[in-house]
């Protein structure tokens, strides 16, 4: 049974479960045409498109697979040939080192209720060369042989020019890698028809009618299929067929008007970003879990919305909220380029003064553990990163202490004494990548996990143990300062808890924190059932790029944190 058949079988089953025919669903679905993305990108100010892509809108209705509207345009053999041409041109021009990434990327985004569709693909290249201490990067679109040769000559000339004043740059050796690899998926989303994508999306929307409340699941998913070739002057040449899914599933309660504080919006963590296919939306228990979440959401609305006294209070953060906080503070602080000041005039630095100041420092309770994970369907999984290194799972925080940082081939030397002390080789862990090959790769692990405690409490138990405090469900945003040393967490939904019971919903409050102090105040880490995986988009690099990663984290209890009001007092 091919992908499309499986999808059809599932959606038929889904339709009958909610008392509708598949034909009814399809009739109701209105596959409106994609609106132009040009509009978003245009004016004399910002760069017209951060990601060069073909964006194709599809007809209103179609039974043809998505791939028929946006097939790959570039043959992998041709891409490998282009990569060889680029490397050869760079080395002949005098580069001491060169690497290149050539990508043919297709993306497909279905909007909520199948009403908005975008198809696109990026077709580009990024060539990096080093001459002495000078590094030059040239990125662009439409990689032809002429263009790549010209880019190589230009990059080498630039690198040679700046090498006169640049410091020597050491790049640790890496094994030469060759071969091919492909993300394993069960159902290729590009082999599914737009009608069936819409059918599944509408299936979520139909839960509004099923439940009988004004709680409407909004679902969209960005599917990415990419062929990426990496080659280096060391002799590496690898081809990867990468598949990624970034779903978003939101619950939206009450009709919205601007300023309506009774409106509740909560993002569900039921289907996190991952390296997988359409099968992630075909889980037989997914709708039941959504309905359960809708029930919870409706009960939240029944609580009166109120306020509490600001000040220091005990706080329970659910897995989403704690993961968002860690993802915006500790994780960037342990990127070695931030620790070394590479980003100080862009996104900032780290709340540790240096790698030496960070490594070995006790951040929190001994149960606190944070790791970069790879393998399986973890988001961002690649067989080789964008420096040709094989990624590995490794800890950043172990038993509450910092044990590693995320490094690249050119800066890992800063960790050499620490690695030597621990008997580890001085090599990076393979977490260097970019989502757009025409942009500069940077440290960007795809998936991070804060470990739960095996026999740890459930969220209900954490709440029951509270005397007087705040329960935070999800995070709208986490504002952090330029070092991640502190900031504010804005909850999606928050509740006051007294003597273990929720007394009211709290609107317009935030939790202000100092990162180190908050982690020192962390007293309890929740059990496995409290863990949630959420997207953690982050920015960095020059040109600035937004990259996706996932954070998995359990719920936690914080002894004391500062709760502040978001309402302006007019003076």
């Amino acid at each position, binding site marked *: 049974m091919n992908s499309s058949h499986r999808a059809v079988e599932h959606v038929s089953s889904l339709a009958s479960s909610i008392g509708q025919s598949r034909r009814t669903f399809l009739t109701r679905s209105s596959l409106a045409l994609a609106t132009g993305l040009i509009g978003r990108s245009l004016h004399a100010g910002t760069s017209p498109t951060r990601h060069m892509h073909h964006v194709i809108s599809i007809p209103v209705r179609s039974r043809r697979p998505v791939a028929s509207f946006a097939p790959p345009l570039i043959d992998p053999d041709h891409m490998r040939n282009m990569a060889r041409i680029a490397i050869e041109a760079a080395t002949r021009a005098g580069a001491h080192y060169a690497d290149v990434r050539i990508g043919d990327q297709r993306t497909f985004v279905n909007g909520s209720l199948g009403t908005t569709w975008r198809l696109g693909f990026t077709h580009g290249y990024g060539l990096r060369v080093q001459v002495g201490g000078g590094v030059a990067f040239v990125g662009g679109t439409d990689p*032809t042989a002429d263009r790549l040769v010209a880019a190589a000559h230009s990059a080498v000339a630039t690198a040679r020019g*700046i090498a006169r004043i640049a410091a020597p740059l050491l790049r640790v050796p890496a094994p030469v890698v060759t071969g091919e690899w492909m993300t394993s998926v069960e159902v290729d989303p590009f082999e599914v028809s737009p009608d069936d994508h819409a059918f599944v999306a509408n299936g979520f929307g139909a839960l509004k009618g099923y439940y009988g409340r004004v709680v409407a699941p909004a679902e969209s998913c960005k599917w990415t299929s990419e062929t990426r070739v990496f080659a280096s002057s060391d002799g590496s040449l690898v081809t990867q067929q990468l598949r990624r899914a970034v779903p978003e599933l939101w619950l939206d309660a009450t009709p919205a008007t601007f300023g309506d504080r009774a409106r509740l919006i909560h993002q569900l963590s039921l289907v996190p970003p991952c390296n997988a296919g359409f099968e992630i939306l075909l889980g037989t228990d997914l709708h039941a879990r959504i309905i359960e979440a809708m029930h919870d959401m409706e009960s939240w609305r029944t609580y009166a919305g109120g306020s509490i006294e600001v000040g220091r209070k005990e706080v329970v953060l659910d897995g989403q909220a704690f993961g968002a906080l860690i993802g915006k503070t500790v994780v960037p602080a342990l990127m070695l380029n931030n620790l070394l*000041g590479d*980003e100080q*005039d862009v996104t900032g630095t780290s709340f540790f003064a240096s790698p030496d100041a960070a490594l070995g420092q006790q951040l929190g309770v001994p149960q606190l553990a944070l790791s970069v994970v790879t393998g399986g369907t973890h988001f961002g999984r690649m067989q080789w990163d964008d420096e040709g290194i094989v990624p590995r799972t490794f800890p950043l925080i172990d038993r509450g202490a910092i044990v590693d940082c995320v490094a690249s081939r050119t800066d890992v030397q800063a960790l050499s004494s620490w690695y030597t002390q621990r008997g580890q080789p001085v090599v990076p862990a393979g977490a260097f990548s970019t989502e757009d090959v025409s942009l500069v790769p940077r440290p960007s692990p795809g998936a991070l996990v804060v470990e739960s405690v095996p026999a740890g409490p459930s969220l209900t138990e954490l709440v029951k143990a509270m005397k007087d405090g705040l329960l935070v469900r999800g995070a709208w945003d986490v504002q952090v300062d330029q070092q991640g040393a*502190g900031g504010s967490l804005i909850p999606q939904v928050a509740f006051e808890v007294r003597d273990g019971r929720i007394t009211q919903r709290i609107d317009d409050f935030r939790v202000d924190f100092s990162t180190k102090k908050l982690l020192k105040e962390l007293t309890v880490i929740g059990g496995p059932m409290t863990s949630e995986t959420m997207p953690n988009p982050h920015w960095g690099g020059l*040109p600035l790029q937004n990259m996706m990663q996932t954070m998995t984290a359990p719920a936690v209890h914080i002894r004391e944190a500062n709760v502040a009001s978001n309402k302006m007092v007019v003076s």
Partner: protein
Amino acid sequence: MSTHADPLSCLARRASVDAPGRRVFTRDEAIALAERALSMSAMQKFGIAISHRVTAVTKIVGGRRIQCVDSDQLNLGFPSEIGSKIQISVETNVRDAEMLRQVIRTAGLHKTPLPNAEDQKPDDPDDPYHSFDRPQHYLPVTLWHDSTIEAMSTARGETIANMADTMRNGDGRDRQLTMAGSVAVTSNVYLMYFPGGRIAWGEATDSEVTASVRARDGRASGWSGQTNRDWSQIQPERVVQEAIDMANRSRGPVRMEPGRHTAILSPVAVGQLVRHMSSNFAAVRNRAGGGPFSHVGAPNGRNLRLGERVFDERITMFTDPNDPLGGDFPFFTDGTPSGRQSWIEGGVLQALSYDPYDALKYGKTAIRDPESVHVMAAPGAKTATVAEMIANCERGFYVNRFSNLIEVDQNSTGLIGSTRDGCFYIKDGKINSPVVNFRIFESPFLMFNRIMAVGTSERVAFGFGDVHGWPLRPIIVPPLMVRDFNFSGMSDAV
């Protein structure tokens, strides 16, 4: 699959980033490409949008680690209409004619009409959505400077070297400071082309230099930046020197009590606050009661505060596509014209923004929101220099810049963030000491009602860490002295 070389010879000339001269399309070249692409499609009412941007960025870290990034990005989009309200868009970056033909064919754009298109209605010539086939008139603007084009190949080597020298000379013998700096130069063009109808063309250059200087012990920092469409107006060494001065003066900060205090905000700090105001000028938002210019429940039935004084009378705000300090393309992304617009005059609200869709719906003229804006002292209002503001300040703080402002209160645009790269206590008319950074919680809409003094406006640099990318649309603002600015707490960051 295509392996063809690029047949468009005009682009072959621009293959090298170091070749001097223009590297983005001219108007004629862009129209030639547009007509070539359109000839491949038989879609009715077909238009095309072309954007082309070339950028050169050079970054120096620690005084000697240098990286250069060059990008050449082309985008072609095909907006069109079928009946009313239905749009089809194709975007592509290919220049190769054969690949372009393949993209258009794959998307089905070679057929007219598309099969199964819903809501397809007969053409109605009076339908306002058919405005694309009518020529439009645009305000002439000058956003292009040849000095910036020349700098794309010359700036990085010489400029970065000079910045590094300035840093070494300014650091002193004990080398206590470290710098990270960036030099960015860009040119871009945009064409929205409907054959026989709307043709919107714009071309622009822009440049920016920033420097962040920190003490090696991590306990002091300074920042400065300049931006201008004309590279010849940029003074990179001065940027570095200002950042060094700020870092040196930030050593040994003391902790001060947070609270509401008089604040003297640099133009950069003002610009960072003003940037969050633009979406609140949307008429639709204010009509719905969710904006700072809403007047819900007004006895006279008016629900907008147009014509009312909303800011201090010394404040004027306007957007001018031909502003000599910045400027912008004089049209929306779909080519709808957008000219000079006054927002606030002497503190009085003059207008709210309407995108083309809302303008049609409400019978208004489309006006771009003030994402690019010029704030200045109202004509006749007295201005003051920062030195004069400090001299007139009994107790207060000077703020160089903020970090990562986000909105937490929608109705008032209440922003939270923290100060950075230079925050100083002012006492009895003089800078007394650097201070540990503050958190802030403030609304620019409320702040503009607590003005004590206004300076002379300049276009501000924001650096390269903004999530909206670079370059941002020009923000031109003065330094301000503000009463009761909300320094809401302490920050641990340096």
